[in-house]
């Protein structure tokens, strides 16, 4: 099968280019990451990130035939139907909107900076109880669909609002995490958290395009979380 991979080494290349490879999968519907490993055997100058190879660590987010996803849990048949039959090529590019360090490896600093801004940790100034801070099962349920995020950045780098203002708009991943703590019954910083979100950019730059929802490999819904935060802001203001 044909594989076309974005290549760029800032030290030697003047500009990025697409490089074609021919890979034999033995007709098997492998994961995209397996194909990358086969390419690496042919050409070990090609760079990409991966660690867990089972959709847990979030390091191999990339743009696969136009859609962001994790290479390790995206089968060829889903990534590019027809690719095994040779009808089309598998096209791999780095996550859009972030600076490329090399080939498929991007610099995630802007993404992490936004994550840091939402203070993604429990804030509670009451003395810690002897064992742990308990939650009722109902309260615990409220953070389902939020805590599972693996920070792969597939969502934020598919969001046009994040492309245009990655320093001002927090992006779906950071906002999902912001809501994860706003929704946590043990967290007491609700008001300060909301107070930091009501400017025209941090949250309100979300235009409800829902690219984030369609790419999240964990099936999470940042748009819904953003909607919940907006309701909290509205309630607090009126």
């Amino acid at each position, binding site marked *: 099968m044909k594989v076309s991979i974005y290549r760029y080494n800032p030290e030697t290349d003047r500009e990025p280019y697409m490089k074609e490879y021919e890979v034999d999968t033995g007709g098997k519907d492998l994961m995209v990451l397996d194909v990358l490993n086969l390419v690496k055997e042919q050409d070990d100058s090609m760079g990409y990130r991966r660690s867990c190879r089972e959709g847990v660590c979030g390091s191999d987010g990339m743009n696969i035939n136009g859609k962001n996803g994790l290479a390790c849990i995206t089968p060829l048949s889903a990534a590019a139907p027809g690719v095994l039959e040779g009808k089309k090529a598998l096209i791999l590019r780095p996550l859009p909107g972030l600076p490329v360090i090399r080939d498929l490896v991007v610099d995630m600093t802007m993404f992490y900076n936004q994550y840091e801004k939402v203070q993604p940790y429990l804030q509670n100034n009451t003395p810690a109880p002897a064992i742990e801070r308990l939650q009722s099962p109902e309260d615990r349920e409220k953070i389902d669909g939020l805590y599972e995020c693996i920070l792969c950045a597939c969502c934020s780098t598919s969001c046009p609002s994040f492309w245009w203002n990655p320093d001002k708009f927090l992006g779906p991943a950071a906002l999902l995490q912001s809501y994860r703590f706003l929704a946590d019954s043990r967290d007491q910083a609700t008001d300060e958290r909301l107070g930091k979100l*009501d400017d*025209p950019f*941090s*949250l*309100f730059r979300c235009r409800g395009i829902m690219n984030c929802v369609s790419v999240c490999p964990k099936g999470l819904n940042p748009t819904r979380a953003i909607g919940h935060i907006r309701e909290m802001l*509205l309630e607090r203001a009126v």
Partner: protein
Amino acid sequence: MVTSVTSLGRNGLSDWLVQRVSAVLLAVYTVVVLGWLIAQGEVTYEAWSGFMGCLVMQIANTFMIVAVGAHAWVGLWTVTTDYLTTRQIGAAGTVVRLIAQLVIALLTLVYVLWGLVIIWGGV
């Protein structure tokens, strides 16, 4: 976390509310006017001018013109801060954006005032 002196309310929530409320007003207005046009069948100048000249429509038109102005400003301000930035068009971004915002603000203001003169001018 981000401050912006050129935004209308300097606050995302109020901008957002302005846009939603004005959108609802515009939708209701459109339905009413379309409904009138359909009910009227053949529209003559007298009928149209009589309809638009009545006090209820004068008030509705006033709301409408303010809603259009506010909606347009929030929307276009957003567009300028998405696309006319140093990230998108290089070093001149900030100056270009300020000029664009100034032009948009002036035009919006002129259109709203002009609209008000048209609505109330004949009284």
